[in-house]
């Protein structure tokens, strides 16, 4: 059904998707509030990298990545990069999309024009991607400067962070359409924090109990971390395609569900 959906969306208008994006660019000019949110979002993963990756890392020494021992900070940095891609995209498609969807009635106004739900979803997702890449580019620069990855590794990891942003952005947008009110954001934040702690971010998943490891390998941030780490630090291998595939499916499914829900809830 989803494949059919992807195929029949060929009459999408890039111009209308651009118009949805254009609205957010306009809002960016409206004042400093959004910029502050933007900046604070960047610093969080960076502070974790410095405190845990570098700080705690000094106590840990090295961990094996693909059989090769690397500094703990080198191990943690790509995970924080993936987290920063995830949070950047999620913040946009959860908080901001939810507000526009439920309270500001922004999309009700948009749907009275030729713009369709899927074009709203694509426009918002593109905007989330812009925010995500803003974070990951800065983060990659920090990583290269601190010697936590090579320039080549950074270039290889960059497109992967875009995929991570798309996957989480799309899934977040779909989830937003199910949230009842701000109280549900506590659940979302808790879920996000759990992923953050247990996705092979701070310790290799092979060190987890087996049952727990299996559960973790089903969750999305694990695949994001493995993909980004593999490209930034190594080792390269075919399994990276599995991780990428997981994220592609997540992005398409999220986008499909978000579009459907926007249409279903607003076009009644």
């Amino acid at each position, binding site marked *: 059904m989803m494949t059919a959906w992807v195929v029949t969306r060929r009459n999408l*208008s890039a*111009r*209308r998707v*651009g*118009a*949805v994006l*254009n*609205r957010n660019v*306009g*809002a960016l000019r*409206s004042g400093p509030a959004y910029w502050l949110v933007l900046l604070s979002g960047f610093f969080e993963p960076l502070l974790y990298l410095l405190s845990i990756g570098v700080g705690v890392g000094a106590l840990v020494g090295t961990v094996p990545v693909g059989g090769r021992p690397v500094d703990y900070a080198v191990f943690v940095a790509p995970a924080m990069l993936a987290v920063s891609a995830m949070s950047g995209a999620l913040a946009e498609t959860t908080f901001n999309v939810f507000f526009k969807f439920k309270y*500001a*009635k*922004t999309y*009700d*106004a*948009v*749907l*009275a*024009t*030729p*713009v*369709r739900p899927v074009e709203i979803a694509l426009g918002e997702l593109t905007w989330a991607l812009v925010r995500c890449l803003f974070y990951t580019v800065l983060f990659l620069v920090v990583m290269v400067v601190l010697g936590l990855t090579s320039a080549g590794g950074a270039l290889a990891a960059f497109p992967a962070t875009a995929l991570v942003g798309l996957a989480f952005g799309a899934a977040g947008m779909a989830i937003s359409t199910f949230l009842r009110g701000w109280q549900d954001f506590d659940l979302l934040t808790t879920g996000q924090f759990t992923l953050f702690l247990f996705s092979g971010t701070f310790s290799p998943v092979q060190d987890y109990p087996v049952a727990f490891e299996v559960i973790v390998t089903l969750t999305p941030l694990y695949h994001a971390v493995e993909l980004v780490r593999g490209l930034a630090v190594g080792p390269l291998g075919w399994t990276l395609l599995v991780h990428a595939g997981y994220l592609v499916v997540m992005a398409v499914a999220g986008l499909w569900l978000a579009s459907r829900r926007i249409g279903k809830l*607003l*076009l*009644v």
Partner: protein
Amino acid sequence: MAEEPLVVARGLVKRFGGFTAVDGIDVSVERGEAFGFLGPNGAGKSSTMRMISCVSPPTAGELRILGMDPVRDGVAIRGRLGVCPQLGNLDADLSVFENLTTYARYFGLSRAEARRRAGELLEFVQLADRAGGKVEPLSGGMKQRLLIARALVNDPEIVLLDEPTTGLDPQARHLLWERLYQLKRQGVTLVLTTHYMDEAEQLCDRLVVMDGGRIVAEGSPRELIGRYSTPEVVELRFAGGGDVAGKLDGVGERVDALPDRVLVYARDGDAAVAEVHRRGLSPLSVLVRRSTLEDVFLHLTGRTLVD
């Protein structure tokens, strides 16, 4: 050959679960006319408007807008409509000017075209001096004018206005009516809902009266008043209770006793008043006025419009 009406509905139905909001209505709107849906809250006006706006699929019946099917050709139809919603959904994150330019982009206007159009429209709705400001500090009337400007940004053939003056003070209403009248003179087709009788009389060439999801009457304001009321109405207030209405039998053509006053429908109001006095009745107050759509509505539904 005559042009197909811009809006045609046949047996149009809208149900939400078990609730029937619109219960089989027939409507047609011709190019260039101002058409009104008049009725109290919950009559099904807004549901009808949403279906015509192509943001709400009909449950049953036939609906054609600009000769097209709203479900299949929604994108094409919406590109030629201007919608002024009841719920003000202006964008608080954008300036007054950007509200228009941003909206214009949804219709595919170029950046330059959007700016030109926004400038013109702000002049038209007399908000040019607020262009750079935020939306939030605007008064209710100004916001409503901005919504109308936004609805005009794509140079629409039909403008749909859902209760355009609800909640506005008299001065703001008159300014809005005047602007809408200008639009009509420019040949724009207006479709509006209202629960104000004077608004319907001011703006509409033709209207339908809705009640409980059905159309209970249709015609021009004059026709409806002619058909369902008398040219004049006498409003009488009496001290105390008692069956005053009974004593008024035969005065005028019809008598309606409301909780606070008695309405006498008459061809000649002054003659009716004279007859009241001749019968030895002494009302506390007497008002002779022209008949309005309010009287039509009361006659058709047995209820007043105001909640």
